[in-house]
C-alpha cells in the first residue's frame, strides 16, 4: 500500500468521526481535498518552491491518527505549567496530540462580541460562520489540502466589528505521542476595526515524544476586515525528530494591519508558508522572522506578500542563526500587481553562520507589475564579526561568552520588533534557552 493509499484509507475510516461530519458543505470540501492530495502527493524538490525542502521522504512514513486525549496527561500538564509560570494575562486554548483539552485551557473573560473556542465546538454551534472562514480545498499546497481533509480541531476566533481583545489569545499545541499526525486548523475572523493578538505555540515535553517522528500539519487562516489590527506570533519549539508543516494564510481588507512574528527552532524538518494578500487599499503588514537551527535541524520559511491594491506598505525582516550541520531556507516573494500604485515594500534577510557545516539559502523574489512603487530588498549571509568579538574580549569577556552575546544580539534585533513586552520576553527567553551559555545572557531583555 502506498502512503497515498494509507492516507485515503485513513480518510475513509475516520471521515465519519471528524468534527462537523454531518455538514454537507464540509463533507464536500474534505472529499475534494483528499482527492487533491491523492492527486498531488507530497511536494518534492521537482517543485521550485520545495527545491530545498523536499517532502518526498514523508511517503516512506506511516503515522497513526492522533488519538488525541482531552485528558490532562502529566507531560502535557507540565508543559502548560511551565508555559504559564509567569502568570501573564491571556486567553488559553490547549490542544494535546490534536485534541482540545478543556482541563488545560482557560479562555477567561472576553469582551462582548468576541468568540474564542475550539473548532469542533464552533462547528457544532455556528456552522455557517465556520463555513465562511474554513477555506477551500484548493488553497495552499498539497499538505494544506490534507489538512482540509483531516482537520478535526483547532481554534475558532471571531471578533465582531470594533471588538478589541487586549490580552493575547494563546493557542498551544503539545505533541506527546510519537508517530502521530495532527492537522490543526485555526480560523480567525476579525470584522471591521477589531483588534487581537494571537500566539501559536508548538511544543513537546522536555526530551520530546520518544521514538520516531510526529507530524504536525497545521493551517491558520486569518481574515482581517477593514481597519482590523491583528498581530500573530508563532513559536515553534518542537523535538528534533518532529516534522512541522505550517501554512498561514491571511487576507487583509482596506486599511487592515497584520503583523506576523515567526520564531522557529526547526525540527527534523519545519516548513512555514506565510501568505498575506492586500485586498483593499492602504494595508500594512510586518513579516518578522527569526530562526535558530542546530544539529541536523532544518527550518524553511516561504513567504508571499501580494500587493494587489494601492498604497500598501509591507516590511519583512527575517534573521537566521545556523549552527552544526543545520540548514535554513528563506524565500520571500513580493508581488506588486498592476495598479497597486504607491506600494512601499521592503525586505531584508540576514543569516549568521556559526559553523562551517551549516547552510543558509536566502532568496528574495520581487515581481513588480506597477509603476510608482518603492521596493527594496537585501540578503546577507555572514559570520560573527571579528572586530566586535575582539572588542568584547579586550574588555575581559571570554571568547565563548562574547560569541554567545553577539549571537544573541543578532537575534535581539528581530525580537525587538515584537510589540507586546510579555511576548517579547517569552520569545527572548526561548532563544536564550537554545543558545549555549544562555544563562550568562539572562540579564539581557
Amino acid at each position, binding site marked *: 500500500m502506498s502512503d497515498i493509499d494509507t492516507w485515503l484509507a485513513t480518510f475513509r475510516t475516520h471521515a465519519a468521526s471528524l468534527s462537523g461530519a454531518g455538514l454537507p458543505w464540509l463533507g464536500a470540501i474534505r472529499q475534494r481535498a483528499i482527492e487533491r492530495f491523492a492527486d498531488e502527493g507530497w511536494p518534492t524538490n521537482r517543485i521550485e518552491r520545495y527545491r530545498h525542502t523536499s517532502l518526498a521522504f514523508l511517503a516512506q512514513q506511516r503515522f497513526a491518527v492522533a488519538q488525541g486525549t482531552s485528558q490532562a496527561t502529566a507531560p502535557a500538564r507540565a508543559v502548560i505549567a511551565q508555559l504559564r509560570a509567569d502568570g501573564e494575562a491571556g486567553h488559553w486554548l490547549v490542544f494535546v496530540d490534536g485534541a482540545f483539552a478543556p482541563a488545560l485551557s482557560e479562555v477567561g473573560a472576553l469582551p462582548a462580541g468576541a468568540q474564542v473556542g475550539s473548532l469542533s465546538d464552533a462547528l457544532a454551534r455556528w456552522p455557517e460562520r465556520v463555513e465562511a472562514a474554513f477555506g477551500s480545498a484548493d488553497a495552499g499546497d498539497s499538505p494544506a489540502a490534507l489538512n482540509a481533509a483531516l482537520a478535526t480541531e483547532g481554534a475558532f476566533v471571531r471578533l465582531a466589528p470594533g471588538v478589541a481583545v487586549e490580552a493575547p489569545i494563546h493557542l498551544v499545541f503539545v505533541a506527546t505521542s510519537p508517530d502521530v499526525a495532527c492537522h490543526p486548523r485555526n480560523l480567525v475572523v476579525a470584522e471591521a476595526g477589531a483588534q487581537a493578538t494571537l500566539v501559536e505555540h508548538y511544543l513537546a515535553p522536555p526530551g520530546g515524544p520518544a521514538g520516531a517522528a510526529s507530524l504536525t500539519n497545521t493551517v491558520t487562516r486569518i481574515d482581517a476586515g477593514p481597519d482590523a489590527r491583528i498581530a500573530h506570533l508563532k513559536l515553534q519549539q518542537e523535538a528534533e525528530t518532529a516534522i512541522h508543516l505550517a501554512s498561514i494564510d491571511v487576507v487583509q481588507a482596506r486599511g487592515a494591519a497584520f503583523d506576523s512574528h515567526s520564531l522557529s527552532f526547526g525540527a527534523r524538518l519545519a516548513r512555514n508558508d506565510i501568505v498575506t494578500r492586500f485586498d483593499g487599499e492602504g494595508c500594512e503588514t510586518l513579516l518578522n522572522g527569526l530562526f535558530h537551527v542546530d544539529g541536523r535541524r532544518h527550518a524553511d520559511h516561504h513567504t508571499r506578500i501580494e500587493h494587489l491594491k494601492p498604497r500598501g506598505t509591507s516590511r519583512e525582516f527575517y534573521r537566521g542563526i545556523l549552527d552544526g550541520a543545520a540548514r535554513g531556507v528563506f524565500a520571500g516573494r513580493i508581488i506588486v500587481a498592476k495598479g497597486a500604485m504607491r506600494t512601499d515594500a521592503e525586505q531584508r534577510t540576514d543569516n549568521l553562520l556559526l559553523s562551517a557545516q551549516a547552510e543558509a539559502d536566502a532568496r528574495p523574489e520581487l515581481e513588480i507589475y506597477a509603476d510608482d512603487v518603492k521596493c527594496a530588498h537585501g540578503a546577507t549571509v555572514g559570520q560573527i564579526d571579528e572586530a566586535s568579538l575582539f572588542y568584547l574580549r579586550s574588555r575581559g*569577556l571570554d*571568547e565563548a561568552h562574547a560569541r554567545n552575546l553577539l549571537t544573541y544580539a543578532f537575534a*535581539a534585533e528581530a525580537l525587538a520588533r515584537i510589540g507586546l513586552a510579555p511576548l517579547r520576553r517569552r520569545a527572548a527567553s526561548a532563544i536564550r534557552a537554545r543558545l549555549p551559555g544562555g544563562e550568562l545572557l539572562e540579564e539581557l531583555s
Partner: protein
Amino acid sequence: MLNIKDLHASVDGKQILRGLNLEVKSGEVHAIMGPNGSGKSTLAQVLAGRDSFHVDGGSVDWDGKDLLALPAEERAREGLFLAFQYPVEIPGVSNAYFLKAAVNAVRRHRQLPELDAMDFLKRVKAEMKAVGMREEFLYRSVNEGFSGGEKKRNEVLQMALLEPKLAVLDETDSGLDIDALRIVADGVNRLRSPDRSMIVITHYQRLLDYIVPDKVHVLSGGRIVHSGGPELALELEQRGYAWIADAAKAGGDSQTAVGAPGGGAAR
C-alpha cells in the same frame, strides 16, 4: 612594567612593526606620535592581543609575564586596557550589560566579589557623571548611534570602571572637538596614578596640551626612531615628521642609537 623588545608584527602578510623597542615604567605616561601608516595603531592592537595582527618576532614583558602569550581577554583581566580609535558598535547589547559583564569579568579574575545590579549602577553612574555622560547611554546599545565624542567618552568610562594597570589610548583625540577633547583628557588625567602606566597614541600634538606625557616617542617605519620629553611634541608640531625620518635614515639602522626610549639623538 612594560618592556617591548625588537617587536615585529604584520597584518595580512604586510610587515608593519619592524623591531620596535619601548620601555614604560610604572606610573609613567608615554606619548607615541608618528605619521600615518607608521604602525601606531598596529602597536596598540598587538598589545591588546588582536588575533588578526601577527607577531613575527620580539618580546613583550609585562611585570614578568609574557604578554604575547596571553589571549586578549586574559590581558584585559590582568589590567591592560585599550581605548579604541574606532569603538565598535554592538546593536542589541545594552551598554549597561556590556559594562557590567566587563567589570565583573575583571573582578572575578582579581578574586573580588562581583558587583550586583545595585552596586554596579551606583558605581557606573558616578563615573558617567565624571565623564559627562547622561544615564540614557546605559540603556542604549553599545556605541550604536553614538557620536564620535560619545564613543570616546564611553571608552574613557570603561577605562575608569576597569581600573587598568596599563592603558593604551589609540588616537583618542581623533574626531573630537575641543570641548570633547578636554572632557576626555580630564577623564584620563583623573586616572593618572603611580601604579598605572599609559601609552597615548596620537597623530597631533593637541592632545598633549591636556595630557602632558613624561616621554614622547616618534614611530616611523615600524620602529621608534626618536624619543624625548614633552617638548619634542611641540617641535614635531612645528617641524612635522619628515626631519626625524630623514635623521633616522642618516643615522643608520642602529637600534641602540635611535631606538632606546628617552635617549634619542636630538635631546
